[in-house]
């Protein structure tokens, strides 16, 4: 398996459960070392270009990376600190655009799975990252939230960003260059 | 010969020490052989099924 992703492109990975979608995403993010082959960023292996690659990467996985004992705003503040180049979007505004502005000061323990997913996705707005890696971003989201996420991805692609995501839903990503790779369980 | 075994009164200690060494080294040798045997059997079973 080998694929290339260029600016302004969206790549959707589809495949049955257990076909290795999540492992692929985690390998792309450098969280899991690849048994064979390499991940290249600006055609340099990411192990040698750790700083450059991670400063342009934003990842939202199954495990949202949200602390239950912190409020949504506090969680985003941490993401702001961790971001290599934080964007001008404030925490309040980011949560607002994801439709959870009102529960900014609620502990994430009390939020529903859909709301927690939105807090995780709000991380994408808080930092300027060229490359988005999203693992099943649309699950647990209601119709209205799914549309917001699709617009978000659309704008990011239009602005020249890159998105790699896994999803079962067949959604039209409003006309972007959209490729789908199907993972067979070889 | 009995003089040798008697070891000037320390026979019990000397031979138990050497006996223990023989035991442990032998155990390692047997363990290694066993692992090799199991690995070979596993591979043969695996290739047998492949054909």
């Amino acid at each position, binding site marked *: 398996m080998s694929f290339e992703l260029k600016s302004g492109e969206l790549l959707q990975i589809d495949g049955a459960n257990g076909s290795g979608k999540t492992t692929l995403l985690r390998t792309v993010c450098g969280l899991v070392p690849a048994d064979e082959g390499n991940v290249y960023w600006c055609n340099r292996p990411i192990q040698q270009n750790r700083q450059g690659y991670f400063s342009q990467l934003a990842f939202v996985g199954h495990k949202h990376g949200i602390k239950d004992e912190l409020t949504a705003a506090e969680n985003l503040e941490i993401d702001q600190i961790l971001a290599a180049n934080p964007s001008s979007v404030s925490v309040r505004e980011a949560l607002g655009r994801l439709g959870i502005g009102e529960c900014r000061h609620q502990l994430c323990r009390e939020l529903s799975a859909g709301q927690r997913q939105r807090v995780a996705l709000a991380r994408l707005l808080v930092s300027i990252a060229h490359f988005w890696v999203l693992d099943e971003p649309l699950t647990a989201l209601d119709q209205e939230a799914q549309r917001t996420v699709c617009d978000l991805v659309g704008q990011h692609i239009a602005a020249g960003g890159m998105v790699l995501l896994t999803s079962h839903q067949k959604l039209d990503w409003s006309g972007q260059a959209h490729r789908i790779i199907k993972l067979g369980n070889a | 010969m009995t003089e040798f075994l008697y070891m000037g009164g320390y026979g019990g*200690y000397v031979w138990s020490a050497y006996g223990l060494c023989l035991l442990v*080294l032998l*155990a*390692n040798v047997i363990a*290694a052989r066993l*692992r090799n045997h199991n690995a070979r059997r596993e591979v043969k079973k*695996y290739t047998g099924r492949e054909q």
Partner: protein
Amino acid sequence: MWTWAHKFGSPGYFYALAGKVNPWLTALYIALFATGLYLGLVVAPTDYQQGDSYRIIFVHVPSAWMSMFVYVVMAVFAAIGLIWRLKLTAVLAKASAPLGASFTFLALATGSIWGKPMWGTWWVWDARLTSELILLFLYLGFMALQAAMPDRQTAWRAGAILLLVGVVNIPIIHFSVDWWYTLHQPATITKLGAPSIHPSMLVPLLIMAVAFKVFYLSLLLSRARAEILHRERRTRWVQELARSGQL
């Protein structure tokens, strides 16, 4: 150097080479053990101070040396494995661990058996025996960590880091235990000293030391071959070996 390491590092090549070398190594260590034991037990004179009980030294000291030697070898494998990601180092280190632990156990057991006639008790918190005991815990810790992690690759790289942390700490532990021993040392107990090394005692000791090293190398190769067969059972070269009846 890199092509050599890569060639040597390939499991198939290592498996064949080890297979050819091992029988010779086995014969060598048996011969060395035989001569060492003969010289040590029969030829070497009785010590005027400790009588014949000192003859345990021919097993105790080599296994103590080996316990330290094997841990350092495993730490070298760990460093190579982490820096150059040579898969073979994982197999070699994992194969060395039980051997190292056995040598450490032997050093402890023979040490306490040797101590009994001298001190009248089976265990004395002597500086060297205590360090050996801690070294045994380091071995067991590494093996426990390998057993606790299902994914082989993560288990090895975590184990490698533990080995490097361990090897850095060994001198510190050794120094502090020695220091602790001198602080609490009651005047009466003499350290577990070998008697003045008379040449006729030194020669068998060195032969036994070499015998232990060759034994370790031979066992390491055979355990590594088993581990390689297990790990590579799905690969083509193993299938061909099986079909051509060489297994």
